């Protein structure tokens, strides 16, 4: 379906692009600032700096004390957060409509004067917090699949080889100068897009943007980091680890083509992954869950990236006692079949319907719309692409899916990560206590 979200744009003299999508029926608004910088821009030996910097953004600027951003936002009932990814860093505030200007002022103050608030003490504290964040996400049972997969899919030295959160030794080596330098290099208005959605008018937002962000100096042009697009991998890379878990999990990962607005190949790869492993109608589910009763379910990930190959994954938790090799073999047969014959009309229709629903669900909140508008503006210069996205996804043909599977999703180009039970697999199902 074609969407009709209103999209208005304005660019300030210092280069900041402002995008507004009015929704007068909403009781709230989202102020979302997207910086065109992520972990792919980090220098060797400084992994994790983009994310460490994101934490520093809450540690105070010239007119905002450490912690005051959070306190001011909480006091008006806002929900706010930030996130760092490979290609972007985002900051958002979901606020009652009366707090839109406060959120914009807070973002402008830290964009202009963050360096004033940086101290060694706050840097040391947030480094410790990030070490705990990393333990919580990755050092738990089943938690190491992502870092292991990235190392296999992207070669050493590739900007996507490392986790966004970085290595603890690199974080410990980061000095205050590194953080200040990162700010001066990447946090300029010309390297950002401000998207505001919800109960606002475009005129009101453009006017406020001129007042709050207009005085921020343009700053230097950030260095261009060219995209590194590789061919599909050849020869299966593997990582097999035993943990205290009750069943095995197998993950297959692939390099996919970069995100693109002109080439639908990444959408075709996404459709192929859905047909293989996206929920109950998928081939993988029918074989592994229904027929063989060997797996609990299958899930897929398509992470479209602009600075190099996107990432595609299929993750399968096995039933207790089922060896991981059985899962991999069955998936290999399905990958071969899809590459040879392409999808049937019915399964393609199911994949289209799921992709369309997920896209629309993402846009159901003002945060989701703001994030999409800012991302399209940053990556492709056109926030209006939000309205044609469902149609571009559902236009994918069976032949495009077959071609994508044959080119990118070969069993022999998959990286395979396995987490398997350290003890005999059936021990996980014996009643305890």
């Amino acid at each position, binding site marked *: 379906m074609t969407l009709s979200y209103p999209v208005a744009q304005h660019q300030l003299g210092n280069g900041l692009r402002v995008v507004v999508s009015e929704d007068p029926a909403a009781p709230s608004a989202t102020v979302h600032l997207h910086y065109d910088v992520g972990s792919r821009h980090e220098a060797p030996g400084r992994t994790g700096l983009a994310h460490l910097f994101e934490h520093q953004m809450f540690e105070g600027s010239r007119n905002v004390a450490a912690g005051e951003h959070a306190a001011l936002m909480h006091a008006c009932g806002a929900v706010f957060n930030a996130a760092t990814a490979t290609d972007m860093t985002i900051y958002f505030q979901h606020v009652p409509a009366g707090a839109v200007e*406060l959120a914009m002022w807070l973002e402008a103050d830290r964009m202009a004067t963050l360096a004033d608030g940086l101290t060694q003490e706050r840097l040391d504290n947030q480094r410790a917090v990030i070490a705990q964040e990393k333990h919580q996400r990755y050092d738990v049972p089943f938690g190491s699949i992502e870092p292991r997969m990235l190392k296999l899919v992207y070669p050493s030295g590739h900007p996507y080889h490392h986790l966004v959160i970085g290595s603890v030794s690199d974080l410990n080596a980061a000095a205050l100068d590194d953080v200040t330098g990162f700010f001066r290099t990447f946090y300029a208005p010309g390297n950002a897009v401000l998207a505001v959605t919800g109960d606002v008018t475009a005129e009101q937002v453009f006017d406020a943007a001129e007042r709050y962000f207009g005085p921020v100096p343009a700053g230097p042009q950030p260095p261009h980091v060219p995209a590194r697009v590789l061919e599909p991998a050849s020869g299966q890379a593997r990582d097999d680890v035993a943990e205290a878990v009750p069943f095995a999990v197998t993950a297959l990962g692939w390099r996919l083509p970069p995100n693109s607005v002109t080439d639908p190949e990444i959408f075709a790869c996404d459709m192929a992954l859905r047909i293989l492993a996206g929920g109950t109608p998928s081939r993988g589910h029918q074989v592994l869950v229904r027929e063989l009763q060997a797996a609990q379910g299958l899930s897929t990930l398509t992470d479209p990236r602009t600075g190099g190959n996107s990432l595609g994954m299929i993750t399968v938790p096995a039933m207790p006692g089922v060896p991981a090799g059985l899962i991999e073999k069955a998936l290999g047969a399905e990958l071969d079949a899809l590459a040879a014959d392409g999808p049937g009309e019915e399964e393609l229709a199911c994949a289209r319907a799921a992709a369309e629903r997920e896209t629309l669900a993402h846009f159901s909140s003002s945060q989701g719309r703001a994030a999409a508008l800012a991302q399209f503006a940053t990556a492709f210069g056109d926030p209006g692409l939000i309205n044609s996205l469902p149609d571009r996804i559902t236009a994918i043909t069976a032949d495009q899916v077959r071609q994508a599977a044959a080119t990118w999703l070969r069993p022999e180009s998959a990286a395979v990560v396995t987490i398997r039970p350290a003890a005999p697999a059936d021990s996980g*199902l014996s009643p305890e206590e």
Partner: protein
Amino acid sequence: MSLAPALQSRPAVTPLAPWRFPVPRHDRLGNGVTLLTHHMPGQHVATVTCHLGIPASAEPDGCDGIAAVMAACLGAGAHGITAREFEQRAAAAGITWTAGPGWTGPSITLELPARQFPAALDLLYWAVAEPAFDPAEVAGRVQLAAAGIAGAAAVPATRVLQELPAAVYGGESRAGRPAEGTLAAVAQLTPDMIARFYDEQVRPAATTIVIAGDLTGQDATRLAEEALAVWRDNRPAGGGVPQPEPALRRQPAAVLVNQPGAVQTQLLLAAPVPGRGHPGWNALQVAARILGAPLTGRLDAQVRERSGDSYTVQAGLTELVPGNGLMLVTGAVDGPATPGTLADIKDILAAPLRDGFTPAEHTAAAEALAGMLPLAYETPAALAAITADLAACGLPPDYLDVLLDDIAGLTAEAVNGAYQSHLGPDQLTLIAVGDAAVLAGPLRELAAPASLQVISA
């Protein structure tokens, strides 16, 4: 362009627009099903939730979790429709189908393109009125449910929640065992037991369907009436086992689940508080916010922003059993630093018993809650979830309005008074998942007077 930008002064926040919870349209269908409808213009993806109204107390002895497994089987085919065909119909219409457990009863939640309401209601009819309970399919669902429980037990963040009911209420009462059941109880369920439980328990009059999304051009009541009219069953539902009111353990439990080599410790502290609808609950919402808001709460101010020993430790109120509240404090903390962090957390929870909260803290927390609640229900998924929950727990549709009004009228003294009367210092239940070789000794001391129970993962 000046190098030192002349920034504007900080803008004021204009007052909140008055907000009232969007009360759903209420219908009773001809067969007795309760239908609650939210028309949300512009929301292209809708949510339909079907709550079966079968409380955990209706489950037979030794069959904890049978209600949730039975609900999971309702999507596994119907008379004349194989499980695969059923799933195919849902997928072709872009409909997701998820069954989940709950103390007040299991529910099925569908997410769908709003234009697919007729298809969604048709599927729901076949699932609840004409389920097949094919033995092979049912056996498969039982195995999946058991594997899900085993998987959650291996992960610290979910393991602490599995341990919570028994730690608070003791494992002898149903309230002391998880709504989704235990591995042992679920693994022994048979297709016959599940089909019989359906026959005894699932009734139109106990069922509530919530619809939220853009209904422009669609009459939800008429669609539901047409789809479900044939489902008639006026037999009284089976009684189940009469359950006494959940009683707290005489002494709070302290449990350490051993996870050898763990670099962090997952902590969960629980204190019994009044349930929703009680004035004490409303006042303690403010207290929990002061203590446990992310970044700005007293807990994060210490364990995150000062010591750096956790990514976050947060506090909030919840109910495992309707009418019985718990204040939960939870977070993953540095393994070796666990004893010191736990002592800090206990100090932070104890301090307001002596000194109360400051007026500034009270004002900020009350205003935060007033601003946050309206933001929380903007999507169909969120609105359908809270509407189904309120109905299942017997709370009035204007429950959140009353809560907000009450919080706005509370004084700082009232919040302090509620905290001091409901949170005794010796009322804390402790659950930890971490390395017992390092932690058992120090936690034993910190848990006193409760005696620490160490169990293997």
